[in-house]
């Protein structure tokens, strides 16, 4: 890795470890909220950014993760069993959602996943016997870790940080293995990929399943963070926001979700507190999204590549005009 990248990572790690000591309760809560969305959108980045699938139903997996853990806790089953079960359930449902993706492409797939999300949300809202319906499930407990209580905000933050970093390392390992190249091939040219022996069906299903599992884990963490869950945060609007986060951060860039989740979660909250802004924070956020897309269509993290490409083309055209001038000089 390049030297400045290592330095950046070190600074970021230091900030993440030290910052909560200086923030008030709400600040720590917001930071934890952000981390959970980094985890969820990391999964979506795999599905959308690396494998090129159009998934607008991620919020449903987030919700399935949250509800699984909450319902099991209510039945007396520990979070530590609930969370892996949530991840597994999301993995399986993600596989199932991948099947339409094999038959249907691009815009139609996007709508199919939207439909899936709405269907799941309707079940959450209407099946009171299971999910509490619109009344939701309250008093969701936080897990204990080896005898330590995670009930307070700060300890829970460090726990979430640990889980997120661990899952990120797993994902990095996967992307650096041959699977990473296979996903990129699937995204950029599925027909060619298949003719080279890449099983695009399998990789498509796995892109959905793994992405979904990440959202499931994030959902489990979310349930214990907010400790009261109801259907609203898992509706289509949430999926659309997560999609926004992936695209704004930079699809296919590993740290895209870090920036994207910051833009989607932290920035609106900050804006709300700026004096004079109040109810204009949402329209301003919307406008910011539009401006960002027009300026950097490949996301925030595409900026270094953009600068590099511009410099390279400037050098190339300078070389060309120098060569032309030299040729002219020789001719004369």
């Amino acid at each position, binding site marked *: 890795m390049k030297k400045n990248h290592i330095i950046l990572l070190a600074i970021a790690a230091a900030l993440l470890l030290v910052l909560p000591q200086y923030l008030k309760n709400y600040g720590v809560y917001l930071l934890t909220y952000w981390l959970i969305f980094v985890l969820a959108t990391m999964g979506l980045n795999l599905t959308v950014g690396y494998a090129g699938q159009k998934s607008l139903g991620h919020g449903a997996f987030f919700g399935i993760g949250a509800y699984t853990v909450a319902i099991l806790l209510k039945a007396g089953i520990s979070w530590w069993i609930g969370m892996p079960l949530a991840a597994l359930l999301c993995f399986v449902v993600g596989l199932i959602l991948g099947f339409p993706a094999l038959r249907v492409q691009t815009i139609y797939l996007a709508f199919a996943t939207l439909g899936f999300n709405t269907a799941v949300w309707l079940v959450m809202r209407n099946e009171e016997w299971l999910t509490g319906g619109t009344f939701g499930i309250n008093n969701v407990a936080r897990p204990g870790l080896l005898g330590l209580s995670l009930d307070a905000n700060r300890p829970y933050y460090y726990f979430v940080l640990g889980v997120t970093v661990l899952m990120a390392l797993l994902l990095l390992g996967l992307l650096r293995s041959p699977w990473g190249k296979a996903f990129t091939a699937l995204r950029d040219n599925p027909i060619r990929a298949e003719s080279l022996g890449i099983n695009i069906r399998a990789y498509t299903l796995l892109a959905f399943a793994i992405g979904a599992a990440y959202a499931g884990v994030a959902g489990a963490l979310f349930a214990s963070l907010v400790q009261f869950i109801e259907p609203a945060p898992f509706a289509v609007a949430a999926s659309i926001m997560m999609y926004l986060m992936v695209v704004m951060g930079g699809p296919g860039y590993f740290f895209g979700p870090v920036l994207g989740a910051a833009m989607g979660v932290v920035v609106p909250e900050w804006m709300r507190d700026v004096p004079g802004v109040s109810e204009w924070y949402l329209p301003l956020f*919307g406008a910011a999204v539009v401006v960002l897309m*027009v300026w950097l269509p490949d996301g925030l993290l595409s900026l270094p590549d953009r600068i590099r490409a511009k410099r390279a083309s400037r050098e190339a055209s300078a070389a060309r005009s120098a060569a032309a001038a030299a040729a002219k000089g020789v001719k004369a």
Partner: protein
Amino acid sequence: MTDFLQLFFSGLATGSIYALAALGFTLLWQAAGTINFAQGEFVMLPAFMMLGFMAMGAPLLVAFLLSCLVSVVVLGWAFKKSIVDPLLRFGMMPIVVATIGLSIAMRNGVRAGFSAEAHPFPSLFGDALFKVAGVTVTAADIGTLVFALLIVVGTQAFLAKTVTGRAMQAVAQNTESASVLGINVPRMIFYTFAINAVLACAAALLVTPTYLAKFDMGESLGTKAFFAAIIGGFNNSRGALLGGLIVGVSENLAAAYISPAYKDAVALVIFMVVILFKPQGLLGKKEERKV
């Protein structure tokens, strides 16, 4: 039976409004590869524009025409120039996200800048009731259906029968060949955006009297328009009409015979069934994956 016919007929009227929004949505996709997630807000904004013009003293139809004009400039030309043109070559993702941002900005901008309340809106048609074949229908239902159908059929006739319309179709089917043939592609694409703006304006004129003008009226309308466009066939203009009518009628029937809570679910269920079994829509053509 008369109840059923009544519901059917008023469902057709609502459905024809969805058809207007769905048609614009489909045209933008076909001609300009644009998925406009802000289509619902494109209907909401003219509704408020018309209210504004009427507050300044203009009668309804004049307000409508003025709003059409402003919409063509803002929702047609400005939208295309500032958002669609720069992003078109980057694939679908940036445009989808940009239009999502636009819809958030428009919806909440109206709420913060104008009002969060629902405003009444005058109807073009008055309150008369008619009895047709034993079924009671309102003047608004008949008027809406006729007006919307005229616009949809008129748009399709324009596309199929006039030189400009056929040029627009050529651009939609094969942009490169069209430009080689000397068709002014950017202008044809602009016309598509302009038509979409007018269709949205017309939808606003017809739907707002019933739903009232509110900043979030675009949300459900936009969703229904998407569903309608997909159900009918996303690469086919006639599909938008069929899809809109299907959604309108089923909603009405579901609300009455099943339960009002499932009104929104019906469009969703039909949509899911279509996506799973005939993803190109009822009237659409299969789009092959190109090598």
